[in-house]
């Protein structure tokens, strides 16, 4: 296994000696990405570790059912997300869904916000405050650079829902950022 950097993000390159259809070859390079996603969802290190560990166990057990040639990344991310949904933290998710629109309604003005690199911490905190459905779709789209179709596979929702949820998630994040940039140290 070779570790290297991709967009400043540590990734693992599969060991060329492993068979290309083996679980190790496909899954191990995604370990860091899965962990990052899990930590964003759970907001807790040990919970994230448990989530990734359980995802690997489930994926390994169900690997014979994985169709070779289809999207392995979407498949394993979906396992992680489903595992999270059934966890204690994840159970709150369904309640959060109803509150989404009230968060978007907080967008006060149409003015543009331009974010510099120095605001990374602000963006991170705004993301942490987002409800999980918004947080996860933003992570899949921006961090994992998944296309709409792949996101639809992970979240098990239609592409139309991916588009509308992504739009609402961005609006919500924007509202939080404006709130933070204008309101100074609110919640920081």
């Amino acid at each position, binding site marked *: *296994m070779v570790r290297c950097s991709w*967009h*400043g*993000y*540590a990734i693992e390159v599969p060991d060329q000696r492993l*068979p290309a*259809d*083996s*679980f*190790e070859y496909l*899954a*191990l390079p995604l*370990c*860091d990405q899965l*962990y*990052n996603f*899990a*930590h*964003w969802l759970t907001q807790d*290190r040990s919970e*994230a*570790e448990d989530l*990734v*560990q359980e995802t*690997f*166990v489930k994926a*390994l057990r169900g*690997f*014979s059912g994985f169709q070779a040639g289809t999207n392995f990344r979407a498949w394993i991310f979906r396992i992680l997300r489903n595992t999270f949904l059934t966890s204690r933290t994840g159970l709150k998710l369904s309640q959060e869904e109803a509150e989404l629109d009230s968060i978007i309604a907080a967008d006060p003005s149409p003015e*543009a*916000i*331009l*974010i510099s*690199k120095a*605001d*990374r*911490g602000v*963006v*991170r905190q705004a*993301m942490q405050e987002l409800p999980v459905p918004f947080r996860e779709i*933003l*992570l899949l*789209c*921006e*961090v994992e*650079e998944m*296309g*709409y179709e792949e996101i639809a596979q992970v979240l098990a929702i239609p592409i139309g829902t991916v*588009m509308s949820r*992504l*739009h609402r998630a*961005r609006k919500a*994040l*924007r509202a939080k950022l404006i709130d933070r940039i204008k309101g100074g140290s609110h919640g920081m």
Partner: protein
Amino acid sequence: MACESFSEKLDAYVDGELPPTQANEFAMHLRGCATCAVDALERIQMKRSVADAGKYYQPSVEFRKKIEASAHKPSKRGNFWGWQVVALPAALVLLISLSMIFLVSREKAKRDRVYGELADLHVATLASATPVDVISTDRHTVKPWFEGKIPFTFNLPELQGTDFVLVGGRVAYLHQTSGAQLIYRLRKHELSVFIFPDRGAESASWASDPLTTMSFTFETWSKDGLRYFVVGDVSGPDVDALSKLLRNAG
């Protein structure tokens, strides 16, 4: 407003999800529309910021090792071995079956070759001007004639009360081995009895019942280290009758 239709597609545009023609159209619009251009720029910056901020959590080295160890256990190769547990014995059974079919067919081919040679010897003897080297209906004349000519001795049956008549005998050769060929007559048919030293392993595949091949009936058996063959253009029961007399001889 013309911008409305574009702003709806702004997300898809910045996400690279618009078809190429629509994306080009959008790019053209952005050049002439400051509002949409600022909007697009803001969203692209947001995307970058989220991407940067989102790549934040890293697993510990210990945890990564733990995951790596857990992933190395079974895999598709594991399933392959699972499949092999069933396939290996099946392959072995198949291999053994094929080997046996091959061996049986090889033995059969060898046996047919011997029968073919014996039939040739039988026909050649009958066609010969001197079918037998010792002409006698008396077994006590024929048997001693072979002494010194072949490396073994044998007993001939008493034929009194049967339809079989001893015609005579000659030395025959099969696979560079000398043996005895006796000619018997049954009604108007001639039968040959061949006696050769038995070669142990080869005897295993010989069928003991009369066998008809190439219109000749064969019967063979092994007794006291000698391999007997009876060949004739008669029926199985006739060949069997002569065989029984020979088996009980002595």
